[in-house]
């Protein structure tokens, strides 16, 4: 009797439609496209900043195009989704044990959310938003 291993056919490009969990995973994966594109924009921004005040002013004007506004909306959604899922994962990635007991996961994620909120407010304050 020959043992034939079970081989499941997995469609390489559409497997993630099989389960909502896979779709959520892929939604998170796709945020890397927008975050990556935004990193490229940041590199360009540094180039423009180094090129002098006129180049920087032109860069700021170029940011106001409709395409740029839509891109910023998508990048913002991606950045917030990445941040939320990352902080939710911290409680699984670094569980904290004190004595016999584990610190509740919500405390670990909650602490990250708190630091995130404070850091963001500090940056907004020093950037002169309010």
């Amino acid at each position: 009797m020959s043992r034939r291993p079970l081989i499941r056919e997995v469609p390489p490009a559409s497997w993630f439609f099989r389960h909502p969990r896979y779709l959520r995973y892929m939604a998170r994966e796709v945020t890397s496209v927008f975050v990556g594109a935004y990193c490229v924009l940041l590199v360009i921004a540094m180039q423009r900043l180094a090129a002098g005040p006129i180049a920087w002013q032109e860069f700021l004007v170029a940011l106001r195009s409709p395409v740029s506004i839509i891109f910023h909306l998508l990048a913002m959604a991606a950045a917030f989704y990445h941040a939320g899922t990352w902080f939710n994962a911290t409680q699984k990635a670094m569980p904290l044990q004190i004595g016999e007991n584990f610190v509740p996961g919500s405390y670990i994620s909650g602490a990250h959310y708190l630091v995130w909120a404070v850091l963001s407010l500090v940056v907004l304050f020093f950037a002169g938003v309010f």
Partner: protein
Amino acid sequence: MAKSHKPVVWFPFAAGGTVIAFCMPVIVVLGFLAALGHVPSGLSYESLHAFAAHGLGRLVLLGVIALSLWSSAHRLRCTCYDFGLRADTLIATMLYVAAIVGSAATAMFLFRI
């Protein structure tokens, strides 16, 4: 001892993921305000130039951009694989080279300021 180059890729990825999670939303919000025409005073040439000209500010900008680039390159590589593009060696090489070039370019721009 097992030898692997994985930690070299993995550490900047994890550090970059954390940096992106903490810093990217607020950076994009600042960019969005500028895109709407309400440029925050911190993004004016004088303020941002002064920040980038300071040693610590320069280090912060370089650190955030370089780590974010590396983390994004690693995540894009995984995303390509998950979407069925299985030429992993080619894609990984292209993306990591792009991340290194982008980081080097950022360092060059910042030290020119």
